[in-house]
């Protein structure tokens, strides 16, 4: 008979409303055998006790229903962003809050490289925080005048380079490529905007690109999840689903040392058929590559518009504060065809809709699809859904839809939303979780890693506090309770990934996937939630301590 291990803890927060709290959980064959007190475990016969967590708090492992694995590739290189981040190896990386800090970090990285020819690549630069000062060749030449330096901005569309790299790649006053920024005298300044310009430094870009697609990137993504208490993460459509890519996912995720389950959304963004029926058939066929840890063939992703902070989201009237509106990424007719095809193939479709006009199109289209082809329990999910208003949430509820809210935006861009993008009233009701709850829409919350850092505690902190980076509160009335917030990063996120029967609560029969915390979220101040240390995770009963603080 398989052995039974009982983990004891100060407190086990189960997120199972029938049995909200416990002090012991029995695990057999990777699954939860029983939850309760140590005495109650006796019913299952002999067991061994593991006291590793006797002074810790267990939660269901956090579930992230919208993240991207490329971040693991970026971590091959130094991070020079504004906000603090935790590296895959568990090091706490302080944000670079001044240009001097950027230079200092790059100089250190330069000193670490042995080969003098090797380009120095860095990522995460966000010059909007340097009060109008830009980071270009003049700045980066202070890092090195001999080594090519390439800094990828957080926005993803802009790269800063030094003079050496421009010289190597032949970027000069004669360069005609749109997006190579030049000064008044026609000289390039070391800023490349948009892909045509970024491809001017192709050799370095391709080096970065191969890092993003390497298996080490996927491993690091798993470590980032573990460090944040996340046991089920998703790759929401921004990675290839070619046979080679899937083999790589299988090798990495099915490795017993890999600390997370991964759900991969199908998209044909990186190749594949273009006929909707064929896309849906291919998506559904991917299910045969699934395992306990790797899920394919259950969800698909479609993009409708851009991002709010990038001024590319599609907004209802009166649009952005500057009077503009964003971009569609797909024609409405085409969207309907794709949605219908996936819907008929039995997939749950996750639709990127940032602005409220995109949400309208999503709702109109889901309604048409459901009239044409009724289907129970479809769980089609509005992703981001940041400006959805009460009328839209009511419709979502009636259509049986789910919403995955980008609550971290309140902290990371809330200040900009107040003054630059949509103004106070709409900023206050951005990511209106309380409205979702009131109108009966099933909802979860996401980080969109790498757009914001992965992790359930940060999301929960954002949802209950709604505080911006400068400390302003955005829309107090849209705060939700800690209990609802924790549901949204566990079982309710699992629902959108069609895994709520397997993960998301600590409950008999589910996988023994736990987030191990050093403190009880219900016992700390709301503003301290994001700072609760994460010991690591348990995945199918196996312990995965976070690097830098755990123990084997």
């Amino acid at each position, binding site marked *: 008979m398989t052995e039974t291990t009982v983990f004891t803890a100060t407190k086990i927060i189960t997120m199972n409303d029938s049995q909200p709290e416990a002090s012991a959980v029995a695990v057999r064959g990777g699954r939860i055998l029983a939850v309760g007190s140590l005495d109650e475990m006796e019913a299952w016969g002999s067991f061994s006790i593991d006291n590793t967590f006797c002074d810790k708090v267990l939660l269901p492992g956090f579930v992230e229903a919208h993240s991207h694995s490329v971040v693991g590739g970026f971590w091959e290189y130094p991070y020079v962003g504004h906000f603090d981040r935790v590296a895959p190896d568990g090091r706490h990386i302080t944000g670079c809050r001044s240009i001097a800090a950027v230079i200092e970090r790059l100089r250190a990285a330069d000193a670490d490289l042995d080969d003098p020819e090797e380009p120095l690549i860095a990522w995460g630069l966000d010059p909007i925080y340097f009060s109008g000062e830009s980071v270009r060749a003049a700045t980066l030449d202070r890092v090195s005048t001999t080594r090519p330096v390439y800094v990828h901005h957080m926005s993803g569309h802009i790269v800063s380079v030094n003079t050496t790299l421009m010289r190597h790649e032949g970027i000069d006053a004669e360069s005609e490529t749109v997006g190579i920024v030049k000064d008044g005298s026609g000289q390039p300044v070391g800023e490349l905007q948009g892909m*045509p310009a970024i491809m001017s430094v192709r050799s370095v870009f391709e080096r970065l690109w191969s890092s993003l697609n390497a298996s080490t990137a996927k491993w690091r993504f798993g470590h980032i999840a573990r460090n944040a208490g996340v046991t089920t993460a998703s790759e929401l459509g921004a990675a290839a689903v070619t046979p080679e890519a899937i083999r790589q996912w299988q090798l990495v995720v099915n490795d017993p040392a890999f600390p997370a389950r991964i759900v991969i959304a199908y998209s044909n963004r990186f190749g594949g058929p273009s006929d909707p029926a064929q896309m849906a058939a291919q998506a559904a066929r991917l299910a045969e590559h699934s395992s306990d840890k790797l899920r394919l063939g259950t969800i698909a992703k479609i993009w409708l518009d851009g991002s709010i902070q990038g001024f590319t989201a599609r907004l209802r009237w009166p649009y952005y504060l500057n009077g503009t509106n964003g971009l569609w990424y797909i024609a409405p007719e085409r969207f309907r065809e794709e949605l219908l095809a996936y819907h008929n193939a039995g997939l749950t479709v996750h639709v990127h809709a940032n602005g409220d006009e995109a949400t309208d199109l999503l709702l109109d289209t889901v309604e048409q699809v459901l009239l044409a082809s009724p289907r129970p329990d479809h769980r089609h999910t509005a992703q981001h859904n940041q400006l959805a208003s009460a009328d839209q949430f009511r419709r979502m509820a009636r259509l049986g839809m789910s919403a995955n809210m980008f609550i971290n935006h309140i902290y990371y861009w809330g200040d900009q939303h107040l003054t630059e993008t949509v103004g106070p009233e709409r900023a206050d009701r951005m990511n209106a979780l309380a409205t979702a709850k009131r109108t009966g829409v099933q909802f979860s919350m996401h980080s969109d890693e790498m757009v914001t850092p992965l992790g359930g505690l940060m999301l929960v902190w954002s949802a209950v506090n709604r505080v911006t980076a400068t400390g302003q509160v955005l829309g107090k009335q849209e705060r939700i309770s800690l209990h609802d917030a924790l549901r949204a990063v566990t079982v309710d996120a699992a629902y959108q990934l069609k895994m709520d029967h397997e993960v998301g609560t600590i409950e008999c029969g589910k996988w023994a996937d736990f987030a191990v915390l050093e403190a009880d979220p219900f016992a700390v101040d709301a503003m301290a939630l994001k700072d609760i240390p994460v010991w690591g995770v348990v995945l199918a009963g196996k312990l995965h301590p976070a690097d830098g603080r755990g123990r084997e």
Partner: protein
Amino acid sequence: MTVLGGYLGAGKTSLLNHLLRHNAGRRLAVIVNDFGSINIDVALVESQEGDTFSLANGCICCTLGDDLAMTMTALLKRTAPPEQIIIEASGVADPVRIAHYGTMPGYRLDAIVVLADAETVRQRSQDRYIGATVHHQLLGAELIVMNKVDLVSPATCQAVRQWLGIVAPGARIVEAVCGAIPLALLLDLSLDRMAVTTDVVGDRLVDHRSSYETWSFAKDGSLDGARLRALVEQLPEGILRGKGILTLSDAPTTRTIFQLVGRRWSLKQGEPWDDALPSSQVVLIGLPGSIDAAAFEQALQ
């Protein structure tokens, strides 16, 4: 590089198929970024030693490391790179933004061509969701192909043409059935192949010579640069496309390449003449009535 834009259903696929069918052995690469257009005749492309690349969904300008830039640079590295590429923009893409890719090293933007469905374009331009997108696409066009004119009455055709003139004042407008327009309007052809002739569309013979006029001019030796520029700047609205391999008096030892698409034109330095005899050749294509051969010739003498 030519960008082919226009909303879903405007006829980009039939125009591309027309182009591939009459391409006559040129090495073309077609990059498709629109999932509405899956009916490109791939066999046709292969038989012409060309390539069709299907690109990913969504916005090619928002993804990290987008397919278009990667595909285009990969094409340049081939042993026999294509002579010209045509990018079929997604039905919601801004063709001007795609045209920026034509400024990448190794490429030259040839033309921004946008199709408009004569039957539906005005209605689409009022659509709640995509009206502004349709307007923006037309506004960015250098050449608008008003397609499917056989499906509307002459009066409607006239009205749509007028409307297009208002919403896209910078564009030249031509009419087409099944996207059948002379290749010379879409591609940078050699001078001897620019002449407008006939096409077979379905089972019908379309004589483009009744819809377009061509003017060719050739002379030994050089032209006066100032006079040429003056002529080009004053060309009538109906001139759609022009090309020339010239010798200008201010640069007598090298070729000067003249390119004109719609209102945009350029003179760029070409190869030196070396041992060849310097000469000047120009071809212009325009709508009927736009070409005044005597006046043009006089202007250049």
